[in-house]
């Protein structure tokens, strides 16, 4: 999972450019994090969020720590809500992956707007966020199934 996440973070820009889907943000790291949370591996999820955040920061023209903070903060939020969530249902994971994407973009845009006063945000961004969230949510069950296969686990309700 670490290797897949790392490769995804490093190559996603190149792949998106080659395929021509730069306008949409399909974040597999978010799905991996939800999977780990569903598996009750909170510490691993925290480490993954931290290091994938740093890796994204390195390859993006932004302040070091921006994505690290965003990934960690959202993960913390989801972990706090664990008690109210039923991870035995795949719907929960799909919904969480989509919410993760929306929360990520909301946080990023808020931080960027606060840090650089008067920074304008394109209206197309607000259209692309739900589309990205929808696509990431739709990919979630397939990735969960694949992860279970790789880990040699029986596919349970949530995957």
């Amino acid at each position, binding site marked *: 999972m670490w290797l897949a996440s790392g490769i995804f*973070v*490093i*190559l*996603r*820009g*190149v792949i*998106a*450019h080659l395929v*021509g889907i*730069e*306008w949409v*943000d399909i*974040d597999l790291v978010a799905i991996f994090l939800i999977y780990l949370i569903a598996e009750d591996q909170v510490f691993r999820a925290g480490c993954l969020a931290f290091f994938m955040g740093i890796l*994204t920061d390195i*390859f*993006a*023209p*932004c302040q070091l720590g921006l*994505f690290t903070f965003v990934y960690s903060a959202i993960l913390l939020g989801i972990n706090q809500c664990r008690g109210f969530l039923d991870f035995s249902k795949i719907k929960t994971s799909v919904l969480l992956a989509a919410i993760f994407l929306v929360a990520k973009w909301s946080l*990023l845009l808020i931080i*960027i707007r606060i840090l*650089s006063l008067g*920074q*304008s*945000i*394109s209206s*197309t*961004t607000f259209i692309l966020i739900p589309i*990205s969230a929808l696509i990431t949510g739709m990919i979630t069950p397939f990735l969960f199934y694949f992860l279970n296969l790789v880990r040699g686990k029986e596919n349970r309700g949530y995957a």
Partner: protein
Amino acid sequence: MGTISIVRDIWRSYFFLVETHQENLFLKRRINHLKRENTRYQELLLANQRLRDLLNFQENTDEPVLAARVIGWDSSGLFKSIIIDKGEDDGLKVNMPVVNSEGVVGRVVSVSPNYAQVLLITDQNSAVDGLVQRSRGRGMLKGNGSSECYFDYVIKTYDINTGDTIVTSGLGRIFPKGLYLGVVKEINDSPNKLFKDVRVSPAVNFSKLEEVLIVLRSGFVPSGIPEMQ
């Protein structure tokens, strides 16, 4: 009869055709090899054409330039940037302008020993001072995060039409004067607004960006001082 037919089959399928079969295999391998070679030559031909365009640009500018290859694209999904294969060891510094034969690509925003990040002019954080080549009307070319840019702060009295060329003004001490930025695509002159809304198509086709030139300017703005917007 059976023995004769077996002998004939052996003769036809082995002794007689063994060389043909081997020749066939050899030719198939040769075709595959030539196909690979042809693809490589096609790539070299296209690269040659692109580099020739860059060389033409290099010959037409007084500034020292350094060619670099694009090795990566923004992985965050939030920014419009590229990673190039030249860095601090090659003399690159922050805020150096990056161009190609078509026009302005962007500027260097961070450098490592062996690679550098370039913020494209289509990024929302990018702003380049420009002017209309025909009427010399001033404005600021800003990225909007998509494949287009806005030409902001264009005063209503300025003469600007669709199809006009936008070039760098040289102000801001980052981009040399007269570099091709793009073409005016659409103008919206609303009476309720102070400035004209101008949409610009960048000169550079960012989807086909493979090689760039970094203008090694001595008068670059140090990284600590933000570019005036």
